[in-house]
Structure formats: C-alpha cells, structure tokens
C-alpha cells in the first residue's frame, strides 16, 4: 500500500544553501544609479491537481516548481528576468542582463530539493471530492454527472528589495471548480460552484457543497428563458460580489488608473451610492485571495476603496505607486515567478448594510434575483461590464417566481454603483479566479445582498 501522504522534506544542505542566499546583498552589488527600485523573488511551490468525473479521480498530477524573478524599475520602465534555477550565480546572471534583454545563460542543473517542506494529503483530498460527488448524486437521480477540477497548492516565496531585507510568505489554497449536469427528457442543465479556502480543509462542508450545486442544476431544468429588458436586479450575497469586482474594483487597480480608467483623478469624490462601502482585505481569514505579504514583499493590509459612496483609494503595486506618487497598498500580485507583478485585488469585501434580504426582494415589484453568479468582465476605460447569472429567478410582485436560464447582466460601472438602492445585512463569502492580461489568480469575495435599480438583462425572451 502506498503511503497516504506525500512528504516533501528538503535536504539540509539545499535548505541551508537557499536560506543563506544574501538576496539583498546581491541586489545591491548589481544596482545601478538609474534603478529606482529593484527586487528579487524566490518562489517554491507544490501543487496537486486532479480531474474528478464518473465518481472517481480520472487523472492527477503533482507539480513541483521553483524559480527566481529579478526586476528593476527605472524612469524608462520596468524590466524583469526570471529562470527556474535558484542560486547566487543565477541571480547575478539575471540581474546583469536586466537592462540589456539578453537571454539568460543556460546552466547545467543539479538535483535540488523538493519545493516546500510541507505535505499534501492525497488520500484525504481525493476523499473530499468523493464525498461531494456522493452528496450531489444522493439528491436526485436526474443528476447525471459531477465533475470537479480540484487544486491544492502550497507555496513559499522569499522577497527582498533594495530597501528591505528578505521577507517570507507561505500560502496554501484549496480551490474546487464543480460542474454538475442534470438531465430530464432531453433537457440539460448545469450547476456551478467554486468553493475555496486558504485555511483548513474543514472550512469546506462537502455535504452542503454537493447538495447545493446539485440543487442549482435541478432548478435549471425548470428554468425559462431570461427576458431581454432593463430591470431591477437583486444580487445574492457572496460570489454575487463579482458585480462590484467588475464594475468598480478593476478600474480602481492603479495600472488601469494610469491608463485613464473611469475613476482616474476622482479620489474624494462620490462615485457610488452612500449605502456602499468597499474594502480590499488581503487579511480576510481563509479567503481565496488572502496573504500576509504581497508578491513584491509589501506587508498586506486592508484598503478602503469606497466609504459611504466616496472613493478613498486605488490599489497599487510598486510600479504604479511610484508613477502615481502614492503609497503601496500591498496589492502587487503575480501568477508565479515567471511573471512580473500587477496591481490586483485580493479579497473584495462589500460591508454589510441595514436591510433584511427578504425585505429587499419583497420590495421589488418586477425584477431579477441573481442567486448565484459566475464570472464577469469589464472594459476599464469605458466602465462597461457584464457578469453572468448562473442561477436566477424572476421577481414578480415581491416574490421569487420562475427560475430563469443562465444569462448575462450588463451595465456601466459609473452608473450602476450610483444605482445601488439596498444593501443587505447578510454577508457571505465567495471565491473566484480572476484573469488579467493572461495572469490568473484566486480572489476572494465577501458581501451581502445588493439591489441595483436597473441593469440590462441579456436574455433571449423578448
């Protein structure tokens, strides 16, 4: 019988070699007067990914990765070089070619340690998926398929800058993408969910998750086409905050501000309903986008973006903070050492309001209830955004009536934020993956029921 756990202990020699790297010293030795900032990141990760279908794990892969990225910022712009080798010679080589764009020199490799000194509980992880599958299938025989794309990632990064000695950051993430297919008399409907935790696996209630996603698929079998109309929309709590993530927060990322986003130069101005307060909180316990230090070594802290409808801050990384002459908010994030950092959201939190969510629905004569939301997309320069409703209902005379087929809600961020007219007191968590310029990162969402006076519902029924 194979061991139930895959252990990854680093040999002492390599561990001490890695930890004795004088990252800051190497930076100072290479620094030029033109460098306004320079940093080095050493990243190690171990990941288990698998695809679960037909009530079994179909394939599973472990991925061990380790590498270095060096960067410098000058008045000319940002330059970076990265390689999957760790050692002082590699760092010197990378730093030496930073402003010349020379290809990193290939070097003979020697066996190195496993990337992190923690462990992945393979059998426990697979058992979690099996329990979700069973809970879903037990709900109803019309559940035809349960697929789960699952990842369990451990990551350790050490970052040093010209100004600051090395800081270490460790992260752990379990992220599940669940799709459940239900069929009845030739009709096909799907349920979708992306539970995640950066804390303990016990944060995930597999029984409840399986039942809930199955319910979403089964409800879809009864759904009728969504209307094409401008209607009031009540967005459910948790992942529904994708609305705010797209409509408001992407245009508040400072690289978009520098490109002339709709919120550029509007700090201190009202941009949203007074009912709305939004915080980017990388310290939210257990959330998908949680970290203590960002990927540039800046300590993380909550950033109030909107307070009572008034714009308070943008989200910056080092480059954009320098260009905007603003403080670093600790939002410099990267997909891996192969990428430079970009200003990115961590966990987007809409603070609780006063309304009872049931009263918000009851107070809506005709509209849409977006119970569960998929992803979204925004054009930062215009503020036009969409987000997908994977489970929704019609609201008729203050009551939820027929479920509607998947649809998209479209709006313009600048207008929609001002049209929020109710904020519930029922804050829930959610998780998603966010892509920007091809860099994909986990992000957290947290917030209550929110109502918008009018959004375009992009259905198929006139």
């Amino acid at each position, binding site marked *: 019988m194979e061991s139930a756990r895959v252990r990854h202990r680093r040999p002492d020699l390599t561990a001490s070699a890695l930890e004795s790297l004088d990252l800051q010293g190497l930076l100072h030795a290479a620094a030029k007067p033109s460098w306004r900032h320079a940093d080095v990141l050493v990243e190690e990760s171990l990941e288990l990914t698998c695809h679960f279908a037909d009530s079994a794990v179909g394939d599973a892969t*472990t991925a061990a990765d380790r590498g270095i990225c060096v960067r410098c910022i000058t008045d000319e712009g940002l330059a970076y070089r990265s390689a999957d080798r760790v050692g002082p010679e590699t760092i010197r080589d990378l730093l030496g070619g930073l402003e010349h764009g020379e290809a990193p020199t290939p070097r003979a*490799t020697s066996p190195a340690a496993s990337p992190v000194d923690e462990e992945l509980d*393979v059998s426990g992880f697979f058992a979690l998926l099996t329990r979700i599958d069973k809970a879903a299938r037990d709900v109803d025989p019309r559940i035809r*398929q349960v697929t789960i794309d699952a990842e369990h990632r451990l990551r350790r990064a050490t970052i040093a800058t010209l100004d600051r000695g090395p800081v270490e950051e460790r992260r752990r993430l379990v992220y599940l993408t669940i799709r459940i*297919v239900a069929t009845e008399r030739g009709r096909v409907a799907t349920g979708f969910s992306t539970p995640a935790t950066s804390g303990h696996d016990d944060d995930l209630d597999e029984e409840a998750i399986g039942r809930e996603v199955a319910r979403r698929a089964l409800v879809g079998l009864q759904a009728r086409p969504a209307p094409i*109309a401008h209607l009031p929309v009540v967005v459910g709590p948790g992942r529904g905050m994708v609305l705010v993530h797209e409509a408001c927060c992407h245009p508040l990322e400072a690289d978009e501000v520098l*490109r002339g986003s709709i919120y550029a130069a509007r700090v201190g101005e009202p941009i949203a309903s007074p009912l709305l307060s939004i915080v980017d909180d990388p310290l939210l316990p257990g959330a998908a986008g949680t970290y203590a230090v960002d990927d540039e070594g800046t300590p993380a802290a909550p950033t109030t973006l909107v307070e009572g409808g008034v714009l308070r801050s943008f989200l910056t990384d080092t480059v954009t903070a320098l260009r905007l002459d603003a403080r670093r908010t600790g939002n410099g994030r990267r997909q891996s050492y192969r990428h430079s950092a970009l200003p990115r959201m961590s966990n987007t939190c809409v603070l609780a309001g006063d309304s009872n969510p049931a009263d918000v629905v009851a107070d809506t004569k005709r509209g849409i209830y977006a119970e569960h939301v998929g992803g979204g997309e925004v054009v930062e320069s215009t503020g*036009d955004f*969409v987000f997908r409703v994977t489970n929704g209902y019609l609201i008729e005379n203050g009551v939820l009536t027929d479920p509607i087929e998947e649809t998209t809600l479209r709006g313009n961020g600048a207008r929609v934020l001002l049209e929020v007219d109710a904020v519930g007191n029922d804050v829930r968590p959610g998780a998603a993956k966010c*892509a920007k310029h091809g860099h994909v990162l986990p992000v957290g969402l947290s917030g209550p029921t929110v109502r918008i006076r009018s959004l375009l519902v992009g259905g198929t029924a006139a």
Partner: protein
Amino acid sequence: MSERLADRYLAEAAKRGVEAEVQVVASHRQEVVARSGTVELAGETADTLVALRLHDRARTGFATASGEADPAAVVERARAVLGHLPPAEEVPADDRKPRAAAAEEPWMPLSVARTLAQELVRGDGGAAEYELRCSQERRRVWLASSLRGASSYVASVAAAVFRATSWAGEAVGHAEQSDHDVSLHALLERAAERVRGPALAQARLLARGRPFRGPLPDRVVVDAAVAGRLVALLGESFRGDAVAEQRSRLAGRLGEAVATPCVTLVDDPLAPEAPFRAPLDDEGSATRRRVLVRAGVLQAFLADRRFAERVPGAPPGSGWRHPPRAAPRPRPCNLFVAPGREPLPGMDAPLRLVQTYGMHMANNVTGDFSVGAAAVVGWNGDEVGVTGLTVAGNVLDLLRDVEAVGPELRWIGSGTTHYGASDLFVRGLSLGW
C-alpha cells in the same frame, strides 16, 4: 541537456520497475508592453518543464517539475499519487511518422522588439491612446519513452494585442485587435496595418457611438475576432473527455448534420497558416489534420490516449497540457472554421458584431452564451458605432444558422491552443440593448 535530463528520469523509473515517458520543454519567452510612446515593461523568462508519465499496474500517473528538481523525488511523488488512482485503459502513442516540423523561426532580440513596439504606440496628435502587448516564445520539446525511443521538435508562437482608446468629448471608445503568428518579426511588420489601424478606427467609431435604434436585422455579420471566441466555446463540445463524461451535446451524433453545409470545422496542429505548429502532441502522438465537421456533418472528436478507446471517432493525437503543468487531456490545437472562397453577401442594413466581452463565462456544457457586445452598423452609407448591447444564443444551435463564411481567417489564442474563424453571416442571435 534535455536528452540527459529525460534519461535521468527514465533511469529513476526503471530502478523502480515502472514504465515511464518524459517530455522536456525548454522555453524562452519574452514580452514587451508599450503605451503612449514609451515601453512600460520588458521582460523574459527561461525555464524547463519536465513532464513525467508513469505506468504501473494498469494505472497511469503524472507529475511535472522544473528543470532543477530531483528526478528521484519526482518519480516517487508520481508513484505515490498513482497508487490512489483507479486502473484505466489507454492506447499507446500514435507513433506513425510525424509530419515534418516547421523550420525554426528567427528570434527577435528584445531590444529590437522594444524599439518597434515603441514606434507603434506613438500618438498621432489625435484624442487617442495606444497600448501594445507583444510576446514571443520558443519551445524546444524533447519526448522520450522507455518503450519507444525519443523525438524532438522546436515550435515558436508570437502574439500582438493592440488596445486603442479614443475620446470624443466625454464619450470613450475602446477597441482591441490581436494578431498571432509563429514569428514576432512578421507580426510587428504588419501590425500597423493589421491591428493598429483597425483598432484605432473602431475605437473612434465607438467613441462617437450611440445606443441601438431598431429595426433589428434578422441576420448579422459576426466579425472574425468574435467568431474565433465562438469557435473556442464550440471546441469544448468536441473534446473526447466531454463526450465520454456526458458533458457534450454532440455525444452519439457522429454522421448527423449538426451545421449548415457551409460549415467545415478542422483541427490541424500543423496548419501552415496557424500561429503554433507541432508535429507531436504532449503525449508523443503524431498530430494529424482532423476534420471534425465536414460540410455540416459531424465526423470526429478529439482524443488523447486515455479517451481514444472510450470515444468513437476519436483517435489519439490531441493530448495537450493546459495549463502546462496539468495532465494532458483532449484539446484542440489549431481549431478553425474553414474559410469560404467568396466575400460575404451584401446586406441592406448590415450590423457587424465587432466586440464581445464575457465570452469566457459561457456554459461549455449546454453551449449557451450571453455576452456584452459592441457593433458597427451601416446607416445611409455611413458606419455608426453601437455600444451597450447584449448578444445571446447557443453556439451549437448557431452552427445551424450560419449562412455564409468569409474568406479571411483570423486567429485568437495562446500557448498550444488557437482558434480561427473568418467573418460569419448568421441569423438567430438575440440582441438586447
């Protein structure tokens, strides 16, 4: 170096009495981001990916590692995970002689790419701003097996994405045009004409755009860039794993008419016009041109070695790692709608869908999509930008509503997966505004 690295992994597997296959991918990637006449970012990455496939007691296990990893530890890890997997049949790699790989493309030095990119984003004095993101990547791929010997090839892929933002008073227009090729030289040489000009023209039209005014035409032109996104969504239904796992509405329909006769859908990893060309997939199978839909009739699906036996009409040769550190699964490589020979027919009130956003959120099981959109409409001889639209439909149903396919193929995508389409003349889309 790749050969020696692969041999070390094979030796470690042999010590443990298990069969192994190893893929070593040595990559070099460069990117440049230029905006408003300056280069904002220039960078490069060099790395080596080792992808291991182990066979033991009718089970197949996978692991990936960076080039510095200890082969013994990686093999042990793969074996440990493999012990938790159920037995599963798989076919051997298709080891017919691969087609010839393309010649190695010249590499553009980063300094040259910086200079050319900077030139392309210089303003012209108008109320507009430009941004160019361009990249090139070269992969040297080495595949070795304890059963079959070794093969290798070199592949290049390059991309240029041009964003234009235009202002007309308070109004803002935004447009993005992308181009893909095996050569960054070729891309930047034609960028002014192929992406910069069209993006700027479209952004200016949309900045002066207005909400839609009816009547709604019952037929629209779907611009090639938008059509490519629809092909990407469509591709999910042709994957052998989706068919086997009952996630494809095309399962069990081989030989049926699923599209209008003007639609022929092809996946060809060595298509001469495609931006990525590979003679072998990530499992070591020789790639082949596969006609999935011929003149509207469903002919085949895409499979890797694990799904080839489970899915009729799906030989191996489409096993790709996406993302690169995942296990190979059936995926398209260069999936495209074969272009037509004639320009699209003229229309009285043409509406051309030129932008969509949110297509990645479409339902890849049912094929339903509902996205934000912008269009260009011909009114009284003038072109007018229209913003604030939604477009909804079902991509599988849409196949039966394609009335004509334009002649000029455009590509979108990245890495080992690209999608191609020409302008499509379609009916049956639901537009909201």
